[in-house]
């Protein structure tokens, strides 16, 4: 399928389901832990036994308010719940308790970085609802097994305006939401485990057209990479269809990451009609100002604020600050390192250089780093105070990675302190000059770039421990003679 994208514009809206990291469920006191044995975390309320009633978990209100504030949105009060009616074996009540008319969060926005610079994406709403259980399809003699452990886990569904125009923007928006929920610590945001899920509404239109094209909804996209690919595929498919003279059908499609395609879900005999109506088992919720203020007082610094602070307080470049601030764990690690090293620039370089490389190598998260922030801080401190050279520091870093030793222990036991004694360095330089008369001749006759050769020889002679600046200074004087 090859299409010419140039004349077309994609219009994309994302619906992101975020599983909130509460201890108990939205309307019951059952645990929300991931990975328990089937149906061991499904109580009589989650099973929708006759006569049971929902009672709201206060924590979800706080989480939703924080998200609303981070998305520059309005908090609705009163906010209320509604029943969304549909039958499915993993939806025990035959309806989902969700929000319709009065979602807790409404009308916000998010700024994302694109190739053309900053772009503002509107957030239509974010509402609370319950997650469904799971249907397990393997090996029950042609039957499915229903596990309701996940049923009733709180979700926030964040709905964007159709203001995203490319798969790359979609990913940037999604990553930005991911960063925010991690910062707010309201979800672990783990897409592989389904604690963050994304549905993409995609349509295309000829450039310059005002009316929106017919859209499809693509479900089941469970990684950043797949979101990009699924949307890309869907854009190309739609353009191809239209250019072939076909019409787009408004439908729900599933993304298949194996084949990197989307396919329509089996359509029903009758259209779905969710018959929303106010949930009579729950009353409208008044969020009074004192409650909201209390929640606001616990708001952490957000990524954009942190980025600005990293620039103004630490003098980091915009690029470094952006990279560090995007991931709360990384930013925290950076601040911890810097608290010890008192050298922001070097701390940033080490984290994004050596440390990131090792983490990537071993596929670890920053939290799993084998070198603690304290040790990395110590290491950088020793570079700064001249105890060791940068080159030796890299060696020590390798040792820290693979052992439990302290920085100073390694320096001492292996005698890695930098040589800073002028006399000692002079004598090493003299030896190098004396044993390389040819190169000395050439240098003095104008071959300046041999200076590096001498530096290298001296460093080699000192086993890397000579202070490079001193070596440079003394060597230059001696060679000029």
């Amino acid at each position, binding site marked *: 399928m090859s299409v010419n994208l140039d004349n077309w514009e994609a219009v994309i809206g994302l619906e992101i389901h975020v599983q909130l990291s*509460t*201890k*108990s469920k939205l309307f*019951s*006191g*059952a*645990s929300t832990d991931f990975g328990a*044995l*089937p*149906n*061991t*975390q*499904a*109580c*009589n309320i989650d*099973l929708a*036994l006759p006569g049971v009633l929902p*009672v*709201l*978990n*206060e*924590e979800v*209100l706080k989480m939703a308010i924080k998200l609303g504030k981070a998305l520059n949105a309005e908090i609705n009060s*009163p906010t209320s719940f509604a029943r969304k*009616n*549909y*039958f*499915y*074996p*993993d*939806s025990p009540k035959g309806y989902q308790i969700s929000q319709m008319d009065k979602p807790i969060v409404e009308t916000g926005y998010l700024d994302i970085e694109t190739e053309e610079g900053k772009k503002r994406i509107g957030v239509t709403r974010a509402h609370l609802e319950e997650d469904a259980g799971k*249907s*397990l*399809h393997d090996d*029950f003699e*042609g*039957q*499915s*097994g*229903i*596990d*309701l452990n996940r049923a009733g886990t709180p979700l926030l569904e964040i709905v964007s305006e159709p203001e995203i125009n490319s798969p790359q923007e979609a990913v940037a928006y999604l990553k930005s939401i991911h960063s925010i929920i991690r910062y707010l610590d309201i979800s672990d945001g783990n897409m592989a485990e389904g604690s963050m899920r994304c549905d993409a509404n995609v349509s295309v239109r000829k450039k310059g057209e005002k009316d929106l094209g017919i859209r499809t909804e693509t*479900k*089941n996209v469970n990684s950043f990479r797949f979101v990009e690919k699924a949307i890309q595929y869907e854009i190309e498919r739609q353009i191809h269809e239209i250019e072939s003279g076909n019409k787009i059908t408004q439908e*729900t499609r*599933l993304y298949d990451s194996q084949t990197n395609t989307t396919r329509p*879900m*089996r359509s029903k*005999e*009758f259209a779905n*009609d969710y*018959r929303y109506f*106010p949930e*009579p088992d*729950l*009353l*409208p*919720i*008044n969020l009074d100002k004192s409650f909201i203020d209390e929640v606001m007082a616990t708001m952490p610094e957000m990524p954009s604020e942190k980025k600005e602070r990293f620039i103004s307080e630490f003098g980091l470049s915009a690029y470094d600050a952006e990279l560090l601030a995007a991931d709360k764990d990384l930013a925290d690690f950076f601040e911890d390192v810097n608290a010890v090293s008192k050298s922001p620039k070097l701390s940033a370089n080490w984290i994004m250089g050596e440390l990131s490389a090792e983490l990537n190598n071993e596929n670890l998260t920053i939290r799993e780093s084998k070198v603690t922030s304290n040790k990395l801080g110590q290491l950088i401190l020793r570079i700064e105070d001249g105890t060791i050279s940068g080159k030796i520091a890299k060696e020590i870093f390798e040792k820290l990675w693979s052992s439990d030793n302290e920085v100073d222990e390694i320096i001492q036991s292996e005698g890695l302190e930098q040589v800073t004694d002028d006399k000692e360095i002079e004598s090493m330089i003299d030896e190098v000059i004396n044993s390389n008369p040819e190169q000395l001749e050439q240098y003095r006759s104008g071959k300046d770039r041999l200076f590096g050769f001498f530096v290298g020889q001296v460093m080699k002679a000192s086993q890397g421990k000579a202070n490079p600046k001193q070596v440079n200074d003394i060597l230059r004087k001696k060679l000029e003679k």
Partner: protein
Amino acid sequence: MSLSDQELKEIAYLARINVKDESLSALKVELEEILKLFEELNEADTSEVDAMSHPLDLSQPVRKDEVTEKNEREELLKNAPSAKSGLFLVPKVIEGEG
């Protein structure tokens, strides 16, 4: 107020209640009688009235985020029409349906 067969079938499907073809017409008559009753509401002027979804004019109480339920799977599965390995069994669910 009259219902078409198609409408009635759609409603029955939304409610997931099988209605046999031979009972459609009798059911239709009964439902139409009830719908006729609803027409009495047309006379009421509700232009200045808020919808009342609840007899209580109170705010929703909340509970603390605490795990209060323990695993009662074996007890709860006793009522299951079909269960195996701690799961409720149903005819094969096709992924993405629903």
